């Protein structure tokens, strides 16, 4: 069971991700944008972070860059949940320090498949 931070500016997307993760026994904290997520990540250590890319205040790519700077998150799985299937976006994510990515539309099974890759 892992403690996971779910970041998305869309409330329905946050609810769906949280719901799916909780149903699979994980505990979830959510945040509406990168800035809020970074604050929360500084307050407690999460076992994994799943973030949207396109968000106000701080986008997902910047969030991942910032998280990787924190000693606590150097090896933490950081997943991008994105609508962009273009390879260059994935590349950008990887370069920022993302562990992996998931392409929307959101699908609970795809999400859990991705989560299983990085946490127990």
């Amino acid at each position, binding site marked *: 069971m892992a403690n996971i931070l779910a970041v998305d*500016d*869309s409330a329905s997307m946050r609810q769906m991700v949280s719901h799916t993760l909780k149903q699979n026994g994980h505990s979830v904290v959510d945040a509406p944008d990168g800035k809020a997520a970074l604050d929360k990540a500084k307050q407690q250590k999460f076992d994994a972070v799943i973030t949207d890319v396109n968000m106000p205040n701080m986008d997902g790519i910047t969030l991942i860059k910032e998280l990787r700077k924190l000693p606590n998150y150097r090896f933490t799985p950081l997943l991008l949940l994105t609508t962009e299937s273009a390879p260059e976006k994935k590349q950008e994510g990887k370069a920022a*320090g993302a562990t992996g990515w998931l392409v929307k539309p959101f*699908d609970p099974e795809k999400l859990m498949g991705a989560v*299983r890759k990085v946490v127990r």
Partner: protein
Amino acid sequence: MSIDMNQFLQTFFEESFEGLDDMENGLLNMTAGEPDVEQLNDIFRAAHSIKGGAGTFGLNSVTDLTHKLETLLDRLREGESEVTTDGINLLLASVDCLRSLLQAERDGTEADPQQAADITTRLAAMVDGDDDDGSSSDGNAGDDAGSSATADDGSGPGGGWRIGFTPEPHLFMTGNDPLRLLEELSELGEIQVSCDSSSLPALPDLDPEECVLSWTIDLYGDVERQAIEEVFEWVEDDCSLTIEPLEPAGGDTTTAAPETAPEPEAASAGEPAGDDTQQKPAQQSSGGNASTSSSIRVDTGKIDNLIDMVGELVITQSMLNELGENFTMDKLEKLQDGLAQLERNTRELQENVMRIRMVPISFAYSRLPRMVHDLMRQLGKKVDLQLNGEETELDKTVMEKIIDPLVHLVRNAMDHGIEPPEKRAELGKPETGTLEMNAYHKGGYIVIEINDDGGGISRDRLLNKAREAGLVENGSELSDEQVFDFIFHPGLSTHDEATDVSGRGVGMDVVKRNIKALGGNITVNSTPGKGTRFAIHLPLTLSILDGQLFRVGDQVYVVPLISIMESLQMQGGKIKRMAGTSELYEWRDDYIPIIRLRELFNEAGGGDLENELMVVVEEDDRYVGLHVDELLGQQQVVIKSLKSNYRPVTGFAGATILGNGTVALILDIAGLLELAQARDEVLTKGANN
């Protein structure tokens, strides 16, 4: 998508409508030829979110349209296309179209397919017009599946694969763990792993943050190569990976495999499409259900307050409990204190619960900028819309019902109030007219004002019209207020020609009726040449009011505290009898009619009014004295509708249940005035005959 995701549809609809409002506002603030990248980014993001959600919920029409919209927005954002007025208008039309598509999905109705098709074509045309290579932008999220499918070499030879996996030293830094990858591989089939630790340095030199091991994995079974690639998808750039068939003997199968591979794929591509059409009705009906239970967005601060308050209530309750367990008379004072505290807690809790229903008026305002924008174009007028007091809160039900009247008044002001730019210039006014909305608290009311600096209403013309319609007796003097009030009379309009924007006079009576139905009131004031001001007074809440209790006969009644000006004992010298039946009372340099409630409610006894009690109440700036038998306490009462529990009764706004369980009727002052007038007319006629 699993079924249980449908529970989030409602949230998706709500945020999508908000997103569309944001897009609309952003577009309205955009000027042709001056692309604001920040704003375009916000608009793009809103569209993007809607697309993401729509994909999840299988709302294909929405996904398709947002995709086209995104393509255009992306070009504008990247500066590849110009921001033109036509472009902005097309984007606005797309927002409208998306809104109606989403509304149809939410309500389980059919959207107009022509509208969506039309917008899609226009969006495509605009994108293509800028760039001949429009086809390349036409791909959608489905491309992803396509592109990865081409990388598929087909399935393994049946015997399995030998996988060489040598991670780069920095692998851990990406958050990936080789052990997890091996575990995932083992889910595909039986594996045999050998680890090469030859590059492991001596312990002192070991950097635990670096990955220096490599693995060779034999995976047995009939596994597709693509499945293995997917396991390593996230690390393909962080390792060197080799995937080779375990036993190269099966040459036949390797060539056969690619041919068979596309087949199941084609089948699987066809199936979801079939599923979609079957799932759709089910989804729509669930969306329809969700919309019937309307929801409200509540500021978390309000909920925190409630929790605090409940906490205090629990403390008070336990204190009273303790007191009650071993109560003696000497603790009476403590008990009274406790009860007073309970009352305070209850009142606060009640106020805060009511506050949950309160939403800022910006909800009602939000539709106006777009409307004004469109009307400016349609009417060829220039108007500066100023919205003030956006934070002012109003009961949600009131808010929903006030939107239409507000829209109507704004249309009217745009159409009839504010003059065309040329005319304004002639009159020495700035070419751009001002339409100012204010919202604020005043007493127990919310006041919403609509001010325009247009031509105003011609008092004489309105009066003539009223005379023509036989509403005014010849020779009678009317105050400005009374004259302007005729604008709310059905069928009266000072505009001889109807326009398609606001019609002629039709609707103002409906506006007034709707506002009245909310327990509110609307007044109008106008100065020819200077402008017009409409003021709407609305009650803070519909269901609770502070009431003054009084007795007439042996019945208890309630009158809203807010409408009471004064309660007094009548002095004989100030009571005047007019010709006919009506009695007047001299009050504050004025004469006000007296209504004998005993008479009106058919209670026995009339007699002299001297030294009797009178409650002076105000309604619509008219004052009237109510003769009552006895004044009782003041308290908050919960209004129960007579209409829904019994039937509407003129003169009563509703009923309430008092602390002792009896029912008391709540007076409706406007209705009472009507009743009294009707009665007087009957009596006067009787006297004349």
